[in-house]
């Protein structure tokens, strides 16, 4: 499978997941968006040596994974994109911060090792947070939340349009690339002489497509921006408002408590560790 095909597959599989009819999917999108942001803020606010405290925050993603019927394998694939960058940034920490924090047997664990591990765990937690949001909420729901948070209509409309056309243009880019590679089987990518015409051709066809799209939208009464209630149409009757409020309140309190109270330390001391 080519890189572009993988991207199309990823988009489609996430869209299918987000449109499932589970109770987590029916929660108000703003609630899930706010909890994801809260999770990320709390995760990155932990001290660089506070690895045990950070691990406590995994309860929220784990809960949504189980309640939403999501597969860990799908989420782990996304980690491969983020982790290399995070590891590269933190890989020097063990060399610069050599103060011994504790011993495991005879092995001295330094501050740099702990801070690097904390950084990686933070990265994993934030990726899982974004994944559980998008795997349980369709893009229209996220756009509706963005409007509720007063994000300008222009930006929200552009996001919706980009999302709608990404799959179409990815497939077109894949066809163009395949056609080229079939004629140049020994090449791994697009050769220098075809850089301009290949991508430029795709660009011009995209512009023409935008023109057709504009004309068809105009025929349906489009005057520059979508009407205010359009995003709500996708969601009519889907939200469970009362459950959403309770869900947000409970999880916000749990996450903040996990940030403030050293739960891992308390549990460890109970077992005499």
């Amino acid at each position: 499978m080519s890189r572009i095909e993988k991207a199309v597959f990823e988009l489609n599989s996430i869209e299918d997941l987000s449109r499932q009819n589970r109770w987590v999917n029916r929660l108000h999108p703003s609630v899930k968006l706010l909890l994801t942001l809260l999770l990320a803020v709390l995760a990155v606010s932990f001290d660089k040596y506070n690895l045990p405290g950070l691990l406590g925050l995994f309860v929220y993603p784990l809960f949504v994974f189980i309640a939403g019927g999501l597969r860990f394998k799908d989420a782990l694939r996304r980690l491969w994109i983020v982790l290399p960058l995070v590891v590269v940034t933190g890989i020097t920490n063990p060399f610069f911060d050599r103060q011994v924090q504790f011993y495991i047997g005879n092995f001295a664990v330094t501050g740099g090792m702990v801070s690097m591990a904390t950084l990686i765990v933070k990265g994993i937690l934030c990726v899982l947070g974004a994944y559980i949001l998008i795997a349980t909420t369709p893009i229209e729901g996220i756009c509706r939340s963005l409007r509720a948070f007063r994000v300008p209509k222009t930006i929200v409309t552009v996001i919706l349009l980009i999302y709608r056309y990404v799959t179409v243009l990815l497939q077109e880019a894949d066809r163009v690339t395949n056609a080229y590679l079939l004629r140049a089987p020994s090449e791994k990518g697009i050769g220098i002489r075809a850089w301009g015409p290949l991508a430029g051709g795709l660009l011009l066809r995209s512009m023409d497509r935008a023109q057709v799209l504009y004309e068809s939208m105009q025929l349906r009464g489009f005057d520059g921006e979508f009407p205010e209630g359009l995003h709500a149409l996708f969601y009519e009757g889907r939200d469970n408002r009362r459950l959403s409020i309770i869900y947000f309140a409970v999880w916000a309190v749990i996450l903040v408590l996990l940030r403030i109270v050293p739960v891992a330390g308390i549990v460890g001391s109970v077992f005499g560790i």
Partner: protein
Amino acid sequence: MHMADALVSPAVAGTMAVLSGAAAVYSVKKLREEDDPKRIPVMGVMGAFVFAAQMINFTIPGTGSSGHICGGFLISALAGPYAGFLTMIGVLLIQCLFFADGGLLALGCNVWNMAFYGCFIGALLVWKPFMRKGATKARIMAASIIGCIVTLQLGAFSVTVETLLSGITELPFGVFLAAMQPIHLAIGLVEGIITGAVLVFVQDARPELLWGVEDEGREGRFTLKKTLVILAAAAAVIGGAVSLIASALPDGLEWAIGRVAGVEELEAAGSVYESASSIQEKLSFLPDYAFKGSESAAGTTVSGIVGAALVLALCVCLCYILRLFMNRRTNEQN
């Protein structure tokens, strides 16, 4: 260059979100003034195009590796900086949500590092001045290469500063910067060539699609003189502000020496060292980037500004030499 959430602190993420948000609100206002309903679908499809085009691998001859287009700059050269900026926000949001490329919390940083520089600096300070006298293949290619290099360098610099201010890495500022800037110089060069190739093709096929291209001889709003003044002011501000940070943090090598030897600078002895040192003292009017005998922040700031001015002066001299050379070649051809 997409920053993950783990690489930023809440304070840095919040600050960058506010800055990027302000730029977005300003762009929305400017677009409304233009009042072109056709622009929205064009922005949507262009955003999807940038997304798709970034997935195409362009083989770099002789290296075996590949590069892709410089999205922010390309889109601004076609749709203008305001539409380009808003489109790039959409692209970055979808990349972060669907492909884990960048984080939701770090979105403000990523928008600033990639969209702001690519669209505003790239389009207004590089693309438009180059297109003032009309679009030619050479001007398009030069604007694309310079634009991509400059915007990627600024983006890479911002990533370094944001990571440093977030207290994420133990790596000293100087070492981190030395690792980030050269690699992005190479990436910028390749992306600039690919972006230039696409824009040259567009100019051949549909020149009316290019943004900001003035007719030959018509005076544009951003003349070369104005551009140089803005760049000089920006360099002075950046030089001044950054040198304050630099003064507080030891250089990577100094830091490493400090760890090993317990002193920031190693003592050296011998006649050769003494002679070299006296020559350096006579020549250097800003030793260790500060006034002689001054430990103050003001001294360091002035050093930064003077340094920026010297770099700019060198660039201007090089440009004049290049222009003289080009004029001579043109005269010879005629």
